[in-house]
């Protein structure tokens, strides 16, 4: 099937490219490890993360590599269990918000005229909506702060920047002759958008996905840190919340606060590193040139 082979070819070239770029490879490995932990958290949690049965405030030991919390929970297990929420929120928000950015940005650019004017205005308005006040208002109104609510808010506030970028790139590609040629030979508009316009924009779309994911990780962690997430679930942000509320840093349990913080930074970095690689895919001029020393040159 043609679309599958197109996807397969793109993935193949992505893999080849990752192999050449060290930064991207590191990012990919980190992400892979985190995905494994997300899929099978039980392999990594030696203890039940919620169980408050251990000595509170214990130092580092083999049983508790990162110590325990004030409530007697194992920090390491909490960290591993919390991976799932953070990674899931990053990926889900990333996908949804990129999907909306692509739909709105490309429609605006391709259709032009009043539709474009309206969609651009809408995008700009959404762009300036502040996240925190919005979720505070919503949480207060709904009196609950579930995972999906957070996803909703992050997607609503996160798609607009990408939509602007994609619209601009689509506009610049729109007048390329090969799109006019497709229209001139009688292709339908849908076909032109899906087969001729979107594929050359793949690298920007992927870059958008990665930055949305990064945005989601950091913002979600921030929201959870101030207690607006569900404080009874396990996630890195809520770990930070509890650590802060119990003044972990001052009472000699620094790892309780540092570990989730570093984990968030590591996840964010993996997206940033992968983003580097896609910059280089998008702009061939940035690619490092590797040269084969020919036999003649050595002679």
């Amino acid at each position: 099937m043609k679309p599958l082979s197109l996807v397969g070819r793109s993935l193949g070239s992505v893999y080849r490219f990752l192999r050449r770029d060290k930064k991207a490879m590191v990012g990919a490995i980190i992400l892979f490890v985190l995905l494994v932990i997300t899929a099978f958290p039980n392999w990594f949690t030696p203890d039940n993360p919620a169980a408050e049965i251990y000595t509170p405030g214990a130092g580092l030991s083999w049983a508790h590599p990162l110590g325990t919390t004030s409530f007697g929970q194992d920090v390491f297990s909490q960290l591993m269990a919390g991976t799932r929420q953070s990674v899931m929120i990053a990926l889900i928000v990333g996908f949804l918000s990129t999907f909306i950015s692509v739909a709105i940005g490309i429609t605006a650019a391709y259709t032009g005229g009043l539709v474009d004017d309206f969609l651009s205005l809408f995008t700009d308005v959404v762009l300036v909506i502040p996240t925190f006040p919005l979720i505070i208002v919503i949480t207060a109104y709904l009196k609950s702060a579930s995972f999906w609510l957070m996803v909703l808010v992050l997607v609503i506030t996160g798609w607009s920047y990408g939509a602007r970028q994609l619209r601009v790139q689509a506009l610049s590609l729109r007048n390329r002759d090969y799109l006019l040629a497709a229209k001139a030979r009688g292709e339908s508009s849908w076909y032109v958008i899906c087969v001729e316009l979107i594929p050359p924009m793949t690298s920007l779309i992927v870059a958008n996905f990665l930055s949305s994911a990064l945005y989601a990780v950091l913002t979600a962690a921030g929201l959870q840190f101030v207690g607006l997430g569900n404080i009874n679930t396990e996630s890195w942000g809520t770990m930070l919340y509890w650590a802060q509320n119990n003044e972990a840093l001052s009472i000699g349990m620094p790892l309780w606060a540092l570990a989730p913080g570093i984990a968030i930074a590591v996840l964010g970095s993996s997206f940033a590193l992968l983003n580097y690689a896609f910059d280089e895919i998008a702009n061939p001029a940035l690619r490092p040139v590797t040269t084969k020393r020919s036999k003649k040159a050595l002679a």
Partner: protein
Amino acid sequence: MSNPILQLHDLRVEYDTAAGPALAVDDVSLKLEQGEFLAIVGESGCGKSTLLFAIAQLLTSPAHTTGGSVVFDGVDLTSLTPEALRAYRWRDISVVMQSAMNALNPTVTIGAQLADACEAHTDWDHARIAKRSAEVLSMVSIDAVHLKSYPFQLSGGMRQRAMIAMALLLEPRLVIMDEPTSALDVVAQKTLMQQVETLRRELGFSVLFVTHDMSVVSHFSDRLAVMYAGQIVELGTTREVFDHPMHPYSQGLMEAFPSLFGEKRDLTGIAGNPPSLVDVPPGCLFAPRCPHVMDECHTVRPELVQIGPHAVRCHLVNKLERR
């Protein structure tokens, strides 16, 4: 009597590619006299633009000058530091790029760009810069009111002329032009060339002009060099090369021009494609496409040999000459 302002000795430029180094300029040697107009003609990919950038010391990675020297007025430019080179830039050597739309900053007025160039290389005050800017624009028949215009407000021909005006700001001795007429219509082209010619006679600068279209320079250049696959294959006075092309490639090029006048006949152009510059074959680079190819052409590389007023790189021509 000869007072060459520019001399190239065995200049060699390579590009780093994934398949190995590509030889874009292959041991090119040239001499340019003061006040002379030398045109370099060749197809896309023959190395003419690379040669130009190598002379102007504007090459960037992945291109490198890997051999030879560029001697301007007795000084080897390849041996200078960037700071020392700056003293030459624009004051002695200036460059006119191919597409004004790409070379001019679209968000800055013409006047501001001219002022930029002046400020970068001189210590003139505002009044003097303004006066000189208006002067150079009038030299190319652009009204001084356009100092306040943005590039998109000018027509294509005017933009190219503005580029030339910019190049002449500091009265350079050598102006290098990279296909400045290729984006212009025929009337604007002729106007531009006539302007360049008039200014050259008045101000006495030398011109190094690169193009793929010989007819553009046919009435203006003193000498013509034909370039193929990084090598100069023919060099002589313009009229000589046009009327009596000796290299099979030059002959093929002449044949590829449909004419407006005279008898209408079928033309064939040159069959085949230029060679890959990465694994350069031994022998003559034009051999695979040459209608007069002989055995030795595949194995022995011909040298550029002076035959009367003409220099040609061809075994067949050498053979005929010796008789």
